[in-house]
C-alpha cells in the first residue's frame, strides 16, 4: 500500500513538471504554428537563438513549439517527426549533428513542410533542396576576425595558444581553422598549443594555468573558441599577475562585453545569434506567405573591441 502511494506521488510530481513546462502557452487561434527543434538548450548560445525566435513568434501572433534534443541526434529526429505529425506549418531546426540531417530533410520535404536550418549548416557548400533553407554565419570567419584582431594588437610575432571547444563540434574545428588561416601568414607567430576546454570556463582556466607553467613568458596571446573559456583564461592570468597576455573570445556574451569594456579581455567576436533566430522565423513566415526568399542567408560576424563595445550593449 505504502509503495503504491509512493509510486502515485512520484507520478503526480513527474506529470506535474511536464505539464508545467510543456510547450506553447499562446492560443493557436490565429496565425501559424512553427516547430522549433533546438540542439541543446543547455548551451547559452542556443538559448539566445531560441529566445529571439520565441520573441518574434509572440510579436507576430505565431504559436511556437520549442523542443530540446539535448545533443541527441535520434531524439531530434523523433521530435521533428512528431511536429510533422502534429501538422505544424513550418519547422526550424538547429542540427545536433550537421552530417545526420538527411532523415529530417527527407521527412519535412515529403510532408511539404518548409524547413529552416539555423546556426549549423548541414549542406556545406551545396545548395539546400527545394523547400529547405539555411540561416547562419560562417564559423571560419569568426576565427579569422579573431586572428586579424590579434595581429592588430600584438604585431606580427609572438606565441599563441588556442582554447578549442568540444573537438567534434563544427564551430570548434572551423574557428580554429580560421585562426590558423590568419596566423600561418606570419612566420614570426608560433602556435604553442591547441587544447580543448569543452566550451567551459573552469576548463579554460585550468588549461591556461598549465600553459603558464609550460610556456611562461613565451605565451603572448590566447585565442578561445568561445567567451566562456576566454573568461576562464582571463581569470587564470589575473591570478598569476600576467596582464601582458592578450585573450580573445567569440560570442560576445554579456560577461565578455563587460570584460572587453574594462580591457581584461582584448576582444571578442559577435555571432549575431539573436539575428539568426529572428531571421530564421522571418524566412519561415515569408515562405508561408507565398514569397520566395533566398535559400541560404548569411548573418555577419562583428569584431567587438574596447573601442566599439559600448554600441553592443
Amino acid at each position, binding site marked *: 500500500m505504502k509503495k503504491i502511494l509512493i509510486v502515485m506521488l512520484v507520478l503526480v510530481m513527474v506529470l506535474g513538471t511536464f505539464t508545467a513546462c510543456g510547450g506553447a502557452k499562446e492560443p493557436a487561434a490565429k496565425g501559424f504554428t512553427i516547430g522549433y527543434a533546438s540542439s541543446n538548450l543547455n548551451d547559452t548560445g542556443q538559448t539566445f537563438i531560441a529566445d529571439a525566435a520565441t520573441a518574434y513568434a509572440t510579436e507576430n501572433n505565431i504559436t511556437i513549439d520549442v523542443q530540446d534534443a539535448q545533443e541527441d541526434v535520434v531524439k531530434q529526429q523523433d521530435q521533428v517527426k512528431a511536429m510533422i505529425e502534429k501538422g505544424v506549418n513550418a519547422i526550424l531546426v538547429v542540427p545536433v549533428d550537421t552530417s545526420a540531417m538527411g532523415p529530417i530533410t527527407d521527412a519535412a520535404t515529403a510532408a511539404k513542410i518548409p524547413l529552416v536550418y539555423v546556426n549549423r549548416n548541414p549542406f556545406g557548400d551545396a545548395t539546400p533542396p527545394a523547400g529547405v533553407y539555411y540561416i547562419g554565419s560562417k564559423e571560419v570567419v569568426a576565427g579569422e576576425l579573431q586572428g586579424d584582431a590579434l595581429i592588430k594588437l600584438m604585431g606580427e610575432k609572438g606565441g599563441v595558444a588556442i582554447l578549442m571547444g568540444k573537438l567534434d563540434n563544427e564551430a570548434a574545428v572551423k574557428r580554429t581553422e580560421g585562426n590558423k588561416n590568419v596566423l600561418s601568414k606570419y612566420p614570426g607567430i608560433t602556435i604553442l598549443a591547441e587544447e580543448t576546454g569543452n566550451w567551459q570556463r573552469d576548463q579554460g582556466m585550468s588549461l591556461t594555468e598549465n600553459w603558464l607553467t609550460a610556456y611562461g613568458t613565451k605565451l603572448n596571446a590566447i585565442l578561445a573558441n568561445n567567451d566562456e573559456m576566454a573568461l576562464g583564461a582571463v581569470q587564470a592570468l589575473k591570478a598569476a599577475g600576467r596582464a601582458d597576455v592578450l585573450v580573445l573570445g567569440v560570442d560576445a556574451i554579456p*560577461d565578455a562585453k563587460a570584460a572587453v569594456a574594462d580591457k581584461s579581455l582584448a576582444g571578442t567576436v559577435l555571432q549575431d545569434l539573436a539575428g539568426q533566430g529572428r531571421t530564421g522565423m522571418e524566412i519561415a513566415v515569408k515562405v508561408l506567405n507565398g514569397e520566395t526568399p533566398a535559400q541560404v542567408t548569411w548573418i555577419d560576424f562583428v569584431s567587438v573591441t574596447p573601442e566599439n563595445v559600448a554600441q553592443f550593449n
Partner: protein
Amino acid sequence: MSDSSKKIANEAEKAEDLKQQKANGNKLLIYLKKYGIIFALILLIVGISIAEPKFLNPTNIFNVLTQSSIYGIMALGMTLIIISKGIDLSVGSILAFAGIVAASLGQVSTATNKFFPNLGEMPVIVPILAALAIGAILGGINGGLIAYTGIPAFIATLGMMTMARGVTLMYTSGKPVTQLTPDFMFLGGKIGVIPVPVLIYALMAGITWVLLNHTSFGKNVYAIGGNIKAAEISGVNVKKNLLILYAFCGLMAAVAAIVFAGRVGSVHPGAAVGYELTAIAASVIGGTSFDGGIGTVGGAVIGALVLGVLRNGLTLLGVQAYWQQILEGLIIIVAVIIDMRKNSKKK
C-alpha cells in the same frame, strides 16, 4: 612494456613480502600495501618531472592540487558510495544546481545580470548554506529512493542526474550566473601561497576519513558493501545508513560546487557535465572496488591526484588533445588491473 611488467612483478613480490611483515606491525609498509597505486603516482610524477622539470615548480604543484580539488572532493563522497556497493551518477548535476543557486545568492550588488535584482549583497555564509542544503537534500532524496523503494542506485541517481540538470536549466533559463562577491571568490583564491580550494579539500578529506574509520556509520558502510543481508541481520539499520550515505555524497558535491563557484567566479547551468565520471574514475583508480566493501579515503585522494597530475603533465609536455583522452582512459584501465591483482593476492 617489459619494464612495466617487471615493475608489476616487483610490486607483486613486494606485496607478498608485506604480507609477512604485517604481523610485525610495520605500519609504513602496511600503508604502502594498502595504497599500491601510490607507486604509480610517484612513477608518474618522476616521469613527468624528468621530461619537463617545470612540473615541480611550487606554483605548478599548487595548480595540480587546486585543479584536482573539485572532482577530488566529489570523489570522497563517491568512494563511500562505491564501498557500499552503490553508485551516484547525480553528483555532477547536483554540483551544477547547488553551484548556480549559491552563485545567484552571492552576486555583487552591481552585477550586470543580477539574478535577484532586489537582493543586496549577501554575506558569503548565505550561498554556502544554501548550496550545502541543496546538496544534502538532493542526496537524501537519492538515498531515500534507494533505501525505501528498493530501486537500484544506478537508476535512482540516473534519474536525479537528469532532473537536477533540468531544474538547473529552468532556474536560470539556461544562462550562466556571474560576478560573485570578493568574499565568495576568496573561497577559490589563496591564503599566502596556499590555495583555499586545497585547504577545503584537505579538510573534507579529513572529515571523510574520520567518518569512515572512526564512526559506527563508517563501519556500517563497509558492512553494507561487504554483504548487505549480513549487515541487516547483524542489526545495522541499512535504510537509515543509506539515506545518510547518499546525503553525505550530495553534501560533498555541494562543497565541490562552492569551490567551483569561488574558483571560476561564475556558474554555468551546463557546468560539471561528466564530472560524476571523473569522480568515479578517481575512486576506482584509488583502489575502491565495485565489488563493495573495499576502498579508502587515502586511495580516493591519490586517485584524484593521479588524474590531476596526468592532465597537467600531458599539457606541460604538449601532448595533443586527442591523445590526452586516450591516455587518460588507458590509465584508468591499467590502474584497475593492477589493483585487482593486489586484491586477489589478499584473498
